């Protein structure tokens, strides 16, 4: 999953093009540590206003951040509104992809909303984007296939 940020150095000091949230967090921490080797994960979490355990999950890509969380993190990282929106869309898309690969998957936006914690409209926006990008094929009422399983990966 990749955002469509313009490839320019962002406020966090990285080129934001093609970065997902967990990549952005990881790169930001690495950059801060390059400046200050003693910079800790806890200090990073504190600067972002999240618990360090939450940050570990986000950086590992195991947690899909909800819109409010993306908004808070984006603000703390100094991202522009448009970049935060893109990051939110990217996270929603990743959440939907992960849900589609679940064993108990049901081809139903309401089910996807329930398991991802995303608003129904955000789920449908993500589905539409996946269809447009040819990353998802709906062949039948119960036959949805991700064309690139990596979409669901961290």
């Amino acid at each position: 999953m990749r955002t469509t940020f313009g490839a320019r150095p962002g406020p966090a000091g990285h080129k934001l093009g093609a970065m997902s949230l967990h990549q952005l967090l990881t790169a930001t921490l690495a950059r801060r540590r390059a400046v200050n080797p003693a910079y800790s994960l806890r200090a990073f979490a504190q600067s972002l206003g999240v618990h360090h355990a939450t940050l570990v999950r986000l950086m590992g890509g195991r947690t899909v951040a909800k819109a409010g969380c993306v908004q808070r993190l984006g603000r703390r990282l100094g991202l522009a509104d448009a970049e935060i929106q893109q990051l939110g869309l990217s996270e929603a898309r990743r959440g939907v992809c992960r849900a589609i690969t679940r064993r108990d998957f049901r081809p139903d936006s309401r089910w996807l909303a329930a398991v991802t914690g995303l608003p129904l409209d955000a789920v449908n926006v993500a589905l539409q984007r996946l269809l447009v990008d040819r990353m998802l094929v709906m062949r039948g009422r119960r036959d949805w296939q991700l064309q690139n399983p990596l979409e669901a990966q961290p």
Partner: protein
Amino acid sequence: MNTPLAAPVTHWQILSTDPARTASFYGRVFGWQISADNAMGYREVAAAPGGIRGGIWPLPPGAPGGVQLFMTVPDVAASAAAAVAEGASVIVPVTALPDGDVMAVLLDPLGQPFGLVQKHG
């Protein structure tokens, strides 16, 4: 030249970055009956007498809104191919919806989006 396909416009769709607000507005002002009681959570607008049914679909923040017309055809894939042969391009490829309908969204040669739908059953 191919024989034109009989493809009546049977559905329209408003694209909105705030579909709840859009639904609320048209519901309050024009009394539209809107229900999202379906698998996609699609806000369906019931057809009033003399009108045709429609819907409201969400857009990501910042995306330009608009209205799309959907034509019912017997075979979405065939009609999409015919449209592409005449200069259209595909946005959403042939897709089977959870309710059994099949749809696709294309851009006509002038860049206007339109939809094709094949009704279930």
